[in-house]
């Protein structure tokens, strides 16, 4: 894994010291809130509904065990004993006090972490496929590329005041697990005639005006990545609208100017600046690829797992649901579910964090990942060790066998925490999970992505949920719109709104009607909800939601 260079270390320490001084000057009155706000946001510190919130970057979702243990320490020392993992593979603490934040940042720097560029109109944390480096189906580990982008974009002088925030994702498998097409720019590792390179997408995004990213360059030679990205972001920086924040994201820039015009401008800029990149970036990348070399996998006989699974159906269910094929036959990637039924999606207590860190050390080569689906991943576990991992996770409520099932819900913090939210998300997710557990239908339903956002900004990715739920304020009452048919994979699609929204108490029964309609109408058990929706269209589901009478009115 990547370790800080002396430059990184010095840079982060200097930023910590600067922020400590800024907090002191805010508290003694030398800085007004107007002056302080952009400074705190540059360091990931928001003021939310009930308290400050600190958002910490987990670069490309990759964590070492000591870093996870430090989160537990921060949670116990300066917060309320837990942390919240987010759809951007970051972690948020919901209750820090202003005067403690510099100490938290120092504690993060001790384990090579920070909160820089987790807010503001800059290039944010670069996200990747959470099985990166482990997945059997990837063509290469996308993390060296993501780390190269992190180094290039951090404190990039030209890109500190973009028209709006800017999100980049990197993937390396045909099956897109990183929601590439919902990002401002996405980079997919590909090969052409045996040569490594990238497919570049531009102009995706969710939020108020959801759009699927389009291919701006089908094959970019590997060495051209940074000048090409710089050309895209420069083009956007000049062309992007600053007059209206709702039209400031690159998706609108590309939409208003047309992909061809945008591409022509970006390619011209690329041609202009390309020679300025002397190749140092490629030396850096080669070094990063060495640093991301896989651990020396132990050679453990996986037959012990088969024996254990044969006599323990709960273990069998968990192994079937919560493991992913690994590039090494004797290993698997484990999804540690942070979605115990009735609990807050993405939350982990300090005790759970320590258990995950200890398990990573004992069975996972010290590595963990944060997934955008708000779970934790152990990327490399010998199959022979899965029973021991399962047993240890089960003791602390981390062995729910629901990865990819109905209760594996993405939910933003919503109006329980977020100052921008228009309705709550978390209790809706909790209630849906409890209800589906009560019905006992989860296994039968199979693959189901429910995603919930508490406002139009769509942090909960509701547009790409098979069932999407958007919480709004309708005349002073919480109201939930339902969308169907969204898809965050390589077949990306924006979900279609079904009709009028539902009151807070009506959402769970509405979702239940959708699930039961699917079970009634599907052709086979292998036909997923999304497949059935694509085959049948919206009508039977609208009928389930609104009844015959309202179908036409909706």
């Amino acid at each position, binding site marked *: 894994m990547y370790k800080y260079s002396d430059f990184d270390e010095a840079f982060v320490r200097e930023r910590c010291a600067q922020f400590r001084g800024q907090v002191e000057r805010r508290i003694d009155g030398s800085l007004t*809130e107007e002056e302080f706000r952009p400074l705190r946001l540059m360091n990931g510190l928001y003021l939310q*509904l009930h*308290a400050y919130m600190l958002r910490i970057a987990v670069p490309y979702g990759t964590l070492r065990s000591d870093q996870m243990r430090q989160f537990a320490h921060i949670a116990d020392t300066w917060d309320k004993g837990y942390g919240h993992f987010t759809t951007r593979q970051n972690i948020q603490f919901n209750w820090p*006090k*202003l005067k403690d934040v510099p100490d938290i940042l120092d504690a993060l720097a001790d384990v090579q972490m920070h909160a820089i560029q987790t807010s503001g109109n800059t290039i944010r944390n670069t996200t990747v496929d959470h099985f990166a480096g482990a997945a059997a189906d990837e063509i290469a580990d996308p993390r060296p590329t993501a780390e190269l982008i992190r180094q290039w974009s951090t404190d990039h002088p030209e890109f500190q005041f973009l028209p709006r925030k800017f999100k980049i994702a990197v993937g390396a498998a045909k099956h897109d697990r990183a929601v590439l097409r919902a990002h401002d720019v996405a980079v997919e590792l590909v090969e052409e005639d045996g040569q490594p390179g990238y497919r570049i997408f531009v102009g995706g995004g969710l939020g108020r005006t959801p759009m699927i990213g389009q291919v701006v360059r089908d094959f970019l030679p590997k060495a051209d990545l940074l000048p090409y990205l710089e050309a895209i972001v420069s083009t956007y920086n000049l062309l992007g609208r600053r007059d209206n924040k709702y039209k400031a994201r690159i998706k609108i820039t590309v939409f208003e100017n047309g992909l061809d015009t945008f591409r022509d401008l970006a390619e011209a800029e690329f041609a202009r600046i390309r020679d300025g990149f002397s190749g140092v970036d490629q030396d850096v990348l080669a070094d990063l690829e060495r640093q991301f070399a896989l651990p020396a996998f132990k050679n453990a006989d996986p037959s012990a797992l088969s024996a254990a699974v044969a006599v323990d159906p709960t273990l069998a269910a968990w192994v079937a649901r919560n493991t992913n094929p690994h590039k090494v036959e004797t290993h698997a990637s484990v999804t540690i579910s942070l979605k115990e039924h009735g609990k807050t999606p993405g939350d982990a207590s300090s005790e759970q964090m320590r258990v995950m860190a200890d398990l990573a050390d004992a069975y996972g080569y010290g590595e963990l990942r944060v997934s955008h689906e708000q779970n934790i991943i152990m990327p490399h576990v010998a199959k022979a060790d899965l029973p021991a991992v399962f047993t240890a996770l089960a003791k602390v409520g981390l062995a729910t066998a629901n990865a990819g099932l109905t209760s594996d819900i993405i939910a933003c913090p919503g109006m329980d925490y977020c100052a921008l939210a228009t309705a709550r998300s978390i209790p809706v997710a909790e209630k849906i999970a409890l209800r589906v557990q009560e019905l006992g239908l989860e296994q039968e339903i199979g693959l189901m992505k429910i995603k919930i956002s508490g406002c139009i900004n769509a942090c909960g990715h509701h547009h790409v949920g098979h069932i999407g739920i958007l919480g709004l*304020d309708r005349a002073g*009452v919480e109201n939930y719109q339902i969308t169907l048919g969204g898809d965050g994979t390589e077949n990306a699609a924006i979900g279609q709104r079904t009709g009028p929204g539902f009151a807070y108490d009506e959402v769970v029964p509405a979702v239940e009607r959708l699930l039961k309609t699917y079970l009634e109408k599907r052709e086979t058990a292998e036909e997923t909800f999304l497949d059935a929706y694509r085959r049948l269209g919206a009508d039977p589901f609208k009928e389930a939601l609104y009844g015959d009478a309202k179908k036409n009115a909706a």
Partner: protein
Amino acid sequence: MARKFTPKVLTANDLLEGDVIYMTADGQWVRDHASAELIEDETIADMRMLTAQGQQDHIVGPYLADAKAGPNGPEPTHFREEFRTRGPSNYYHGKQADTSKESANV
């Protein structure tokens, strides 16, 4: 014609703690919504806002929130403001967990 003024309380967040605070009739900041001043006159509301804007060395983001008279003092009328008086619904954290009911000055 201007819209009819509806009763308000003046609210903000505390600079150090981040907690939700309200202004009382005698100009103190407290943490309990019911102890806030229910402002029923627009001119007074404007004056209170000006006062608050001058106090930003220890408060953040003051604004006027709709409220109504209740048996124990002002009550919020919108669910967002109601949540702010309590805390989140997924954990017993925030104001709802604050056992010291005294109207601590900030």
